[in-house]
């Protein structure tokens, strides 16, 4: 039964939602509005005046080779981060699901990386892969491989992907494990009696039943890779070498705060805003329908 409270007046309900509205207004609507407004102007070098350029910033942006490249970089980066973090998490969750003894300890240990802030995680990986003093770099050197992510674009991308995915594995693992444990054991047993071996069972029974979880994680991880990996990229590569790891969010920062091109930076934020909105629509449209089978 649905319980609904009906208010007689207008003031009490307004008062009750006021804190939420105020926070959203101050931290979202106001800056978002500012960004949209600023994206239509070019400020002079001293910030004393602004010149109306209409959609000029956007035109300039999309004709910029580096900006278009950043889209591709973001797509590659997001797909890799999502695949790595979800793939490893699923693998670990499947193993943990079969574990009877010590699953508590195993789970607890796996959750810890989630508590590490992205910037800290970035520094951690940076130290391990530091071109001069990094432990991993040294071992790779012994194997005859010369690791240098400062110069090599592929290695730089690989490193930020691994560092970003690493902290995310815990989160995905928890959801996957919960999803796996929600599948009735007897269904798996029935499939085993029906002749399905482990891999067939996984493909035909477990994976489809896990699909709501997988889809939820897919959207959440893409959003994470898009927006929350700034700290990792900033600490490890600062977007380099040659903008090879400059994802859209990082470019907003690099162009606006480092390059002082506020008009372009604002226009980029607006583009990101549109992307977030689209992702949110997707999320609401599909994730709210929880049952997919």
């Amino acid at each position, binding site marked *: 039964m649905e319980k609904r409270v009906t208010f007689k007046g207008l003031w009490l309900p307004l008062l009750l939602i006021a804190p939420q509205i105020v926070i959203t207004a101050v931290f979202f609507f106001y800056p978002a509005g500012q960004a949209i407004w600023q994206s239509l102007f070019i400020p002079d070098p001293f910030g004393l005046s602004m010149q109306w350029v209409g959609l000029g910033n956007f035109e300039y942006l999309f004709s910029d080779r580096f900006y278009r490249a950043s889209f591709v970089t973001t797509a590659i980066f997001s797909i890799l981060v999502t695949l790595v973090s979800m793939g490893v998490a699923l693998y670990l969750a499947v193993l943990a699901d079969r574990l009877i003894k010590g699953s508590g300890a195993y789970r607890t240990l796996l959750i810890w990386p989630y508590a590490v802030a992205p910037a800290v995680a970035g520094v951690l990986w940076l130290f391990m892969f530091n071109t001069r003093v990094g432990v991993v770099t040294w071992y790779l050197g012994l194997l005859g491989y010369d690791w240098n992510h400062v110069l090599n674009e592929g290695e730089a991308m690989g490193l930020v992907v691994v560092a970003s995915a690493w902290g995310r594995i815990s989160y995905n693992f928890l959801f996957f494990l919960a999803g796996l444990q929600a599948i*009735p054991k*007897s*269904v798996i*047993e*029935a*499939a*085993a*009696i*029906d*002749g*399905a*071996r482990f891999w*067939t069972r996984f493909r*035909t*029974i477990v994976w*489809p*039943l896990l699909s709501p979880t997988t889809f939820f994680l897919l959207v959440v991880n893409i959003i994470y890779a898009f927006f929350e990996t700034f700290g990792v990229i900033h600490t490890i590569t600062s977007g380099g070498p040659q903008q090879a790891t400059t994802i859209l969010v990082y470019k907003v920062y690099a162009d606006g705060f480092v390059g002082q091109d506020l008009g372009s930076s604002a226009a980029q934020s607006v583009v990101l805003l549109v992307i977030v909105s689209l992702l949110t629509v997707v999320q609401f449209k599909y994730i709210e329908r929880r049952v*997919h*089978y």
Partner: protein
Amino acid sequence: MATVALQSLRKSFGKTDVIHGIDIDIADGEFIVIVGPSGCGKSTLLRMVAGLETVSSGEVQIGGRRVNDVEPMDRDIAMVFQNYALYPHMSVFDNMAYGLKIAKVPKPEIAERVETAAKLLQLEPYLQRKPRELSGGQRQRVAMGRAIVRKPAVFLFDEPLSNLDAKLRVQMRLEIKALQRELGVTALYVTHDQVEAMTLADRMIVMNGGVADQIGAPLDVYANPATEFVAGFIGSPPTNFLDAALVGEQGGRIGIRPEHIRLDAAGRLTATVGYAEALGAETLVHLRTEDGTQITVRQDATLPIPGEGESRGLVWESASAMRFDAEGRRVAAG
């Protein structure tokens, strides 16, 4: 179709023994019901036959072949689970066809076998539905259909009717029995419901604390229970037990079925009438003896119902009294 044999079958989880050695030879096409209270190990026993639990010691044979280390899928069995265990994302057709597809049976044959099973179970109109669109009884049928299409040598049922309401349970019980007869397949059926056990079984295994207290045909078990536990568990209302000393005999306890006691003005024992349950065809009279033993008498509805608080004598034939020793084992009369 196959015989099944269990030889000194044991199971322990860690240090806890749950099955203490079960021996039985099951004939081809026989319907065996494993019955007992919860926690007696009956489901574990079934799961060992299915291959879902490992065997601690002893042997499981299906069709004369030792299958202790054979995977469930290679044992030529099919199992119906208590919660049906249907694949929720597949249609009824796909649920039933799943095992056949894995076995790489040609498509036309799959369709034919599923259709035949669906017809047998009156599931034809529902083949394209998902399990969540079916009622409990229909889901149960799908679970059986999934077992039937594979044409297994042995059917295993793990409390398949527990989740159904009483009326449906009676109906499905008859259908299961008819189906098993028609297919002539060997069946092992686990239940805690003694009525199901009595009506379905060719022979039943009455389990108590991991031990098979008695194995036999339902009516034999009913008439000649081997232990006090069996006498109390099989039959509803349960057998009345009283201390032998109460009727001037030595040691142990005496069990008398409710239908074997008659009320009279005077008898072997005097008891006070509690309340009476008139069920239509029969009446259950509950009485209490002087020492506080509860006695239930089942009498014909045509007989007068004694009033509450009245005193009555309990009369029974000596032959109908079952004697048990201190360990609960049956002692020969005399």
